């Protein structure tokens, strides 16, 4: 027994000893990035997608696009997030190429480019090094597919194209700091050697800094040079310029050089920074020097941290003067606090307690727990949406992604308020279910946004750039969607409950659900009608026509008509409890059609949200919705037939006596 224990001890000690060694050997960067380095780097501002954002946001969405997750495990076992991954891409590209960060959902994509990796699943992650043998074929295929109309591409082609884009983006990132490693031919002529010396230095800042001196030197020597010497100088300068230009073009992944002139909005890529430095601006040269110092210090964590602090100070100083830095720390905090994942966890935990409360209905603390966690989840959604509004100076809804957050938040609030009034645990039971479903959908759609827009806070097209109409029409109509979906959930609860025998015989329960459904439909109609007309008014004031039968307008109109139909059918006595539930359930399908489907039709003024994969999910929802409604009527038919007629009941009673 003791021998065995000591063997295990030796094994653990050996592993403990070897682990850091393996880390040092495998990573190529000796140690992990320090917390301070990560903090400074993630707060570094960069202009991307039309706005200035933290490098952390940039890294998150780039990694999300490639990997479909924000974290991954490096070959040495280190868990890496977006910022360390981006740091590795910049400073240790060979290492980054070994990370399995490329998600390939179907191995047929790899077969198409002639790459074969043994022992992998059909859907798996691959490193750049593993994909590299098929690189040429991948880009050739990417070029071919690019020329095809989107709707003509099959599944494999769509994935091939996405992979080609991802590989290209990744290559750009790994070359982002090529200028810091460039070796310019500064010793190729007499004139150059007299200024730069004989020893070539990596980077471009040294050359750009001494450029005025070189010009003066050549000017001074100009007359004294022979024609041959002059030609030699010219050839050397052309070669140097070509090399500088090539280095700048390779380093084109990031616009991290804020222009010193306030009136210039566009941040500069490396090549632009060279041009500005060449024109004599001191700031770009300072920043170029800063990036080169980082590259030189990358193997010394303390020195790297110090250089990064200096560079961060310089970049953020300029950005601050331009009024573009103030929200950077808040945005970093927004993603660090991860409101929506935490909200999902809260709702899921509330759901677990809810299930437990069904098993032990008299345990009051379980119900209180459901309340607390549901409120917490809702507050997290509200807080996240609020921070997004502050970050973008926008009302809560301006993209499809934001509609999901807003709808989830509104549904949760309405349910909690309803529960506060009713105290029947019906609305309370639905809060965590809807909250978790909404947050889950948001997380899935975030991946689509990462692939399509590279951000969930993208710049808006000119016509949408109006806070007044976004705050009025878009918010109101989205509230209408929320109410329509909530009514559908309640309707489905009634239908499924009846079919499965939930609370059988409890008429009050079903009456309450029905009243809630009716109330939510009324609430939905108010917002849908006002929101739809406001949309028409916006169109009238922006394009000159109130109504153009555009698919998105029609979608909103369909919701209004469906809800009017529900209310008129109820008032006319054509739909009672069952009919109301069925119609509310079907209205949910209409909301889904208006919310997502019309954007995927590919026609109309609102075809701005076309998203791959959404149609399949929609058809599934339509199918399930229709089955539930049809099923409920079949169940009712069956239930009616199962009740014996009075005469039959009499004969049944008589049978034993006879």
């Amino acid at each position, binding site marked *: 027994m003791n021998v065995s224990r000591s063997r295990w001890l030796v094994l653990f000690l050996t592993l403990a000893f070897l682990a850091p060694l393996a880390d040092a050997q495998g990573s190529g960067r000796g140690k992990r990035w320090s917390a301070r380095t990560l903090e400074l780097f993630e707060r570094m501002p960069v*202009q*991307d*997608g*039309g*706005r200035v954002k933290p490098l952390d946001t940039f890294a998150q969405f780039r990694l999300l696009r490639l990997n479909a997750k924000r974290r991954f495990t490096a070959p040495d076992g280190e868990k890496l997030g977006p910022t360390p991954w981006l740091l590795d891409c910049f400073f240790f590209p060979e290492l980054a190429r070994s990370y399995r960060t490329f998600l390939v959902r179907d191995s047929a994509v790899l077969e198409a480019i002639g790459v074969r990796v043994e022992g992998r699943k059909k859907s798996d992650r691959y490193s750049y090094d593993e994909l590299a043998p098929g690189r040429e074929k991948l880009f050739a295929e990417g070029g071919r597919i690019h020329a095809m109309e989107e709707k003509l591409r099959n599944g494999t082609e769509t994935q091939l194209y996405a992979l080609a884009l991802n590989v290209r983006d990744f290559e750009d990132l790994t070359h982002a700091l090529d200028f810091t490693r460039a070796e310019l031919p500064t010793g190729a002529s007499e004139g150059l050697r007299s200024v730069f010396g004989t020893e070539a230095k990596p980077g471009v800042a040294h050359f750009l800094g001494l450029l005025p001196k070189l010009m003066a030197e050549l000017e001074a020597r100009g007359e004294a040079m022979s024609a041959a010497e002059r030609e030699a100088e010219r050839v050397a300068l052309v070669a140097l310029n070509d090399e500088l230009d090539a280095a700048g073009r390779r380093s084109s992944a990031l*616009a991290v050089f804020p222009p010193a002139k306030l009136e210039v*909005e*566009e*941040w500069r890529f490396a090549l632009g920074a060279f041009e500005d430095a060449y024109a004599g601006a001191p700031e770009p040269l300072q920043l170029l020097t800063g990036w080169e110092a980082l590259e030189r210090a990358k193997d010394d964590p303390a020195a790297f941290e110090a250089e990064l602090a200096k560079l961060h100070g310089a970049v953020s100083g300029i950005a601050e003067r331009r009024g573009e830095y103030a929200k950077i720390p808040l945005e970093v905090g927004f993603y660090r606090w991860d409101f929506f994942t935490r909200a999902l966890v809260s709702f899921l935990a509330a759901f677990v307690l809810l299930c437990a409360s069904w098993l032990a209905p008299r345990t009051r603390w379980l119900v209180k727990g459901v309340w607390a966690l549901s409120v917490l989840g809702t507050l997290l959604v509200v807080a996240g949406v609020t921070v997004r509004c502050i970050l973008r100076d926008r009302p809560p809804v301006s993209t499809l992604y934001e509609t999901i957050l807003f709808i989830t938040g509104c549904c949760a609030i309405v349910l909690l308020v309803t529960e506060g*009034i009713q*105290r029947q645990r019906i609305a309370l039971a639905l809060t965590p279910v809807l909250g978790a479903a909404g947050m889950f959908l948001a997380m899935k759609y975030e991946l689509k946004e990462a692939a399509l827009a590279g951000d969930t806070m993208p*710049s808006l*097209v*000119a*016509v949408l*750039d*109006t806070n007044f*109409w976004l705050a009025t029409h878009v918010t109101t109509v989205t509230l209408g969607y929320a109410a329509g979906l909530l009514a559908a959930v309640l309707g489905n609860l009634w239908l499924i409950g009846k079919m499965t025998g939930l609370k059988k015989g409890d008429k009050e329960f079903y009456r309450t659900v029905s*009243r809630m459904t009716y*109330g939510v439909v*009324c*609430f939905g*109609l*108010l917002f849908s*009608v*006002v929101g739809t*007309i*406001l949309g*028409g*008014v916006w169109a*009238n*004031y*922006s*394009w*000159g*026509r*109130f*109504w*153009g*039968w555009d*698919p998105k307008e*029609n*979608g909103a*109109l*369909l919701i209004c*008509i*469906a809800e*009017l*139909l529900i209310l*008129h*059918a109820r*008032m*006319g*006595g*054509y739909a009672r409890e069952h009919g109301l539930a069925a119609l509310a359930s079907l209205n949910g399908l209409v909301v889904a059609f208006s919310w997502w489907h*019309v954007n995927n*039709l*590919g*026609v*109309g003024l609102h075809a701005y949200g076309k998203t791959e994969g959404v149609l399949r999910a929609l058809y599934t929802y339509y199918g399930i919705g229709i089955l539930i409604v049809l099923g409920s009527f079949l169940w009712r038919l069956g239930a009616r037939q199962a009740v014996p007629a009075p005469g039959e009941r009499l004969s049944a009673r008589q049978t034993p006596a006879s």
Partner: protein
Amino acid sequence: MTLVRRLLNGLGSFGLACLLLLDLFLLTWFGTLYQVEHGLHEAQKLYFESWFVVQSSPVPLVLPGGLLCMGLLALNLFVGGMVRIQKSKRTVGVMVVHLGIALMLASGFVKLNHSDDGHLTLYEGEASNEFQSYFLWEVALWDASQKGPVEEHLIPHEQLIDLTEGKRRSFTSSTLPFELELAGFLRNCQPMPKGPMWEAESPVVAGYALEQGSEDKEAERNLAGLTLRARDRATGALHEDLLWSVERHPATFESGGKTWAVSLRHTRYPMPFTIRLEDFRKEDHPGMSMARSFESDVFKIEDGREQKVRIQMNEPLRDGGLVLFQSSWGPSNAGPKDALFSTFSVVRNPSDHWPLYSCIVIGIGLLLAFVPKLLKFVRAQDSARAKLETSA
């Protein structure tokens, strides 16, 4: 029960309301899907501006069309929701909502029948005092030998579009020395040299005939054409020509010692002022090719007075019953020093602000209808809970 009362009962019934709402729902849904293959204009004509819809796919169906449905709905709303409805404090909200919907339907009716819309496209430095329709056509005829401003004789859209399948129409005027005959209107066509490979539907003029093409999904892209015959009343000389809407120069012929010009073009509407485009700017989001704003600086010239105005997205120019909106620009491949053109959508709509008013009325009505119900519900819940607590 009298027949009138029974008729009123039927017209104002919930049953009819439900059927009409269902019809409108189906029309809107099918009309939306139809756009994918056939374009908005065709969908609009077939589903929303028709009396009846006969549909073969995706489901074979005959439905009352948009005009009939909305007309009946307006009647149902008036009879059921405003005349026959029980008037009480409880139904005030519903009546207000119906009033708002009636106002909205009325605004749609006014827009459909009494509005003009089109566009005005100007290059920087150009000016114009008229805009032209996207879809409607007209034939203009004028004395081309005259110098300076000319008087035009216009033949409107309605007198052109039915000139199909051999139908001809003659036009005469005491001031014209000839009789004009138009025929063979084609919605989308192009002149082609007549060869043995195709059967021309129009007469062959100077070796060319109009070849009919399929109609474009985007109706404003269609290029109409027709055939013209002008017979001199004095000499009987006949001139035959083809008119095509894209021709740069009008067709000309001699009659009565003058040269006459004829052109087929989009219907033009005069404006009470002249617009001169001074400068057009398109700004992109920094580092992107996505437009952040489109702006046109124009001068509005009226009675010799010039007023500088900026027209941009969401901020149109409203004056003289017209509204000019920033619509598009070009050429898309223009270099930094190339002159740009700006296109304004122009609308003359007497019911311009009615939708906003109806929105306010409907909003108030819905609040009046639903808020009391909500309060009643909350009070009922409170008292039910209080009863429960007392009994416990």
